[in-house]
């Protein structure tokens, strides 16, 4: 009895803290992710207010959080959008990879994280946060801008690249051999091809299994399928996150739309718990020594993202202001970087996750700030009237 009351009260306090922080972040038009991470740091061991009883729930909740996060990321994928993005922006995606993964990988090598650590660091600095960027484009009302299709295409191609990168990294991090890594990448590519075939020819065999009018049944079916696949991929040493991502990729069309709607509230809760758990697992004292390196790497990879966005937007014919907006909006790193770090959490505790958390906290704040500043860049010739500041204070 006492145990459960302590759990409920601690959990209540934790969620209340998250709710307050989330509201604060939204009020100023920023992503709540860095605040969740900071809350985790404050509540963890060595923090200001440890919550030991909630620990078991947070641990379980965090692993469900990763699964739901990647399921919904996978659900965003549609074949048509992928092919349209690939047609125009494969060069942009290559520039994105070369410019942004390289600094991370080099930094990982210099920090002595080994070559798997360097691979993971490359991934962490490579991927922009689709969640933060999409939200920013909406809050700043840039959806109709000329550079926006380029920005979104870069995000889509990054996400698809993750379908191969995550299983590769997961297997290698778990100490698997090259052939095992190749096998799991092949499985991932297979799931992607299934998604293609499903929308093109087969009429969605997976969709037919899970599809139902009843939202409750749909939720249960999708969750059971996702957890089963996630569990099996975890057994095969390829990380549960990868399995969930593949289920999301394989579900397309109407079923994906409806699944997104029913899963969204659960995802929001458990993803918050996941970000919290990352903070909880880190001792704030571990962050201090890596901080100079984090800031240096953040500065370099912010600049390389600006170049990436500049290049991609230029391909779509945007002028200088549009290119600058595209570059700055891509700076934000978030959920994928943290998922990549969590894949290595068991193999390399401490340094890498502390590094990734600090890095995401910095860029998830700097990115939105930078792109808001880019909005202030004056038009090349005087505009007719003072432009209405329609920025992030508008509630969605």
């Amino acid at each position, binding site marked *: 009895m006492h145990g459960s009351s302590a759990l409920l009260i601690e959990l209540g306090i934790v969620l209340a803290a998250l709710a307050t922080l989330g509201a604060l972040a939204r009020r100023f038009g920023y992503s709540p992710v860095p605040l969740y991470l900071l809350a985790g740091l404050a509540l963890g061991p060595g923090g200001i207010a440890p919550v030991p009883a909630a620990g078991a729930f947070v641990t379980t909740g965090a692993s469900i959080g990763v699964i739901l996060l990647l399921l919904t990321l996978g659900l*965003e994928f549609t074949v048509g*959008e992928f092919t349209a*993005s690939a047609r125009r922006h494969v060069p942009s995606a290559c520039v994105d990879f070369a410019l942004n993964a390289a600094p991370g990988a080099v930094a990982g090598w210099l920090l002595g994280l080994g070559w798997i650590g360097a691979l993971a660091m490359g991934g962490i600095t490579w991927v922009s946060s689709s969640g933060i960027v999409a939200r920013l484009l909406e809050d700043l*009302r840039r*959806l*109709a801008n000329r550079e926006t299709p380029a920005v979104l295409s870069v995000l889509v191609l990054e996400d698809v690249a993750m379908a191969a990168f995550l299983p590769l990294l997961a297997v290698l991090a778990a100490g698997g051999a090259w052939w095992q890594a190749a096998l799991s990448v092949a499985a991932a590519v297979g799931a992607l091809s299934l998604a293609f075939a499903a929308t093109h020819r087969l009429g969605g065999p997976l969709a037919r299994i899970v599809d139902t009018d009843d939202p409750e049944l749909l939720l249960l079916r999708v969750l059971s399928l996702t957890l089963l696949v996630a569990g099996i991929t975890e057994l095969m040493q390829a990380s549960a996150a990868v399995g969930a991502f593949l289920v999301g990729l394989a579900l397309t069309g109407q079923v994906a739309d409806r699944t997104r709607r029913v899963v969204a509230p659960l995802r929001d809760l458990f993803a918050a718990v996941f970000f919290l758990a990352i903070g909880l697992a880190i001792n704030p004292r571990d962050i201090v020594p890596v901080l100079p390196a984090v800031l240096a790497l953040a500065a370099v990879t912010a600049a390389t993202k600006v170049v990436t966005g500049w290049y991609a937007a230029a391909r779509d014919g945007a002028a200088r202001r*549009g290119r600058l907006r595209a570059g700055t909006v891509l700076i934000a790193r978030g959920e994928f970087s943290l998922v990549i770090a969590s894949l290595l959490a068991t193999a390399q505790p401490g340094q890498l996750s502390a590094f990734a958390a600090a890095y995401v906290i910095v860029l998830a704040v700097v990115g939105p700030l930078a792109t808001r500043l880019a909005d202030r860049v004056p038009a090349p010739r005087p505009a*007719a009237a003072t432009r209405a500041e329609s920025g992030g204070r508008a509630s969605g």
Partner: protein
Amino acid sequence: MMTQVEVTEVLLPGVGVRYDFTTARGERFAVVTRRSGDVEFMDYGDDPDAPRPLWRLDAEEAEVVAEVLGAPRIAERFADLTKEIPGLGAGQVPVTAASPYAGRALGDTRARTLTGASIVAVVRDDTVVASPRPDEVLQPGDILVVIGTHEGIAGVQSIISG
């Protein structure tokens, strides 16, 4: 269909679709339709890099606007469409109060089984029920938009008028 408006469609991955319009008067605006059904109108003014937001509609509001603009023309548009395929025609069949099927489900007419012609829409006052389901209840005053061969359309006409 001839039109004065130039429309380009731009896919916004993960978000929806943007339609760019240039009117005959040279005004440029964009409509962004979101996956959620929300719609946003933007005005490009003279600077293509600084679109100004005009309105934001949720899915239901967008539906109302679409109906106001589109409902009365839907039957005409079907007629235009079917001209392209030889042998296929579009017809409008009114449901009068005297019809045996006024107040009954569309499926009860068994129109498609008996004639091969499809009822693709029901125009009711200012609204359109597109692709009506078999359980759609027909009201007196409804106009059925039928696509099929000319015999098929005539068949539906005689079934509905009883």
